[in-house]
């Protein structure tokens, strides 16, 4: 068969373009797979959490439940409890401790002054600093307001861990990928509450859906004194603390 150089190039160019177009089309066909929770509509939810500081007893149930539910490696925490101890004369410098994240509860410190527990968790910020720094699109805010990590895309570069002003992220020592609270995304998309809220004995934590008009969160936010952590950082934090002491960082 005789073929000029130009004809050969034209033929091969056509071949390459057509196969790539066909491959793209096939990708679209393959992408039409069923979702894991078929009845869940992401556009109808905007998840947040309310924490009633006055109800937290520091039992550590949330920390243990989170570790069980999400297989959190030992010594790392997706949620943890801090104990604040504030002397009246020294309120700018609270004493904070969190032995093993509160996993085993807290031994009594028998200290005078103001003592209280603060449960901490990812704030699932609407304008989250951690997602903005990710160089590969491995962490993101979902359309329903949950900040998640794509384990398959994460390089383990730790930018997000440094960017989070709340210290909510860590590097999983086995997978070498960034890990954080998923707000139990596998549970809330099935109609369950998070593991920490499910197991909080005093109801100090409650999962809330800001897009659901019937959620009691709306009345709660209106009628109580509610703060977020580090409001000056303008992260759009969505974990709301009732009656938060000004000394809490």
């Amino acid at each position: 068969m005789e073929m000029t150089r130009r004809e050969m190039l034209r033929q091969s160019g056509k071949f390459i373009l057509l196969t790539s177009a066909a491959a793209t089309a096939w990708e679209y066909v393959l992408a039409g797979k069923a979702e894991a929770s078929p009845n869940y509509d992401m556009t109808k939810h905007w998840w947040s959490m309310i924490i009633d500081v006055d109800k937290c007893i520091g039992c550590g149930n949330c920390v243990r439940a989170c570790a069980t539910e999400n297989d959190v490696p030992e010594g790392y925490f997706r949620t943890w409890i801090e104990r604040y101890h504030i002397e009246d004369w020294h309120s700018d410098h609270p004493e904070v401790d969190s032995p093993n994240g509160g996993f085993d509860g807290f031994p009594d410190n028998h200290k005078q002054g103001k003592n209280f527990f603060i449960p901490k968790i990812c704030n699932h910020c609407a304008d989250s600093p951690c997602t903005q720094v990710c160089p590969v699109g491995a962490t993101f805010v979902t359309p329903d307001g949950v900040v998640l990590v794509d384990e398959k895309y994460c390089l383990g570069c730790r930018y997000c861990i440094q960017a989070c002003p709340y210290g909510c992220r860590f590097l999983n020592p086995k997978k070498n990928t960034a890990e954080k609270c998923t707000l139990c995304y596998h549970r809330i998309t099935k109609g369950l509450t998070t593991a920490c809220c499910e197991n909080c004995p005093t109801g100090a934590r409650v999962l809330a859906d800001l897009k659901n008009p019937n959620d009691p969160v709306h009345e709660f936010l209106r009628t109580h004194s509610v703060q977020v952590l580090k409001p000056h950082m303008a992260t759009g934090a969505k974990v709301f603390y009732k009656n938060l002491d000004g000394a809490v960082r």
Partner: protein
Amino acid sequence: MKDFLRSTEHLSRVVLLLALGLIVFLLIRQAVIPAEFGKYGHFRPGALDDIRARPVNFAGREACEACHSDQVEAKSKGKHANIGCEACHGALAKHAEDPTSVVPELPKTEVLCAKCHEANAAKPKTFPQVVTADHSNGMPCNTCHKPHNPRISGD
């Protein structure tokens, strides 16, 4: 015309090389980036399905209440009415799936109750707390208190 082609031949080769490079780049890009990337934002939508597909370990109180209506009844009258079952009994999604072969163990009350009710200066003042060593001296709490409705006079 012939002169023109001859004088630009070295350029056309470069252009061809660049075009080929572009095609190779586009092909690799096509192969590496998932088709739906960017559907909801700068991320892979498949990650949502991956995360949703994780197993549930805590079945949730509704699942427990479907079978254990007697315990719900006992619990509803006491101070522990709003506590989730698995807060004390542990993660039992496997039991909810297969109640006969996976049977939960009863928690030891002298350990379990103290996790919440051991006295601590940081606990809210209205929360019932005891120093267990003075209060019961190591006796199991359920000798006197029924865990589902702990008030001693209440039944």
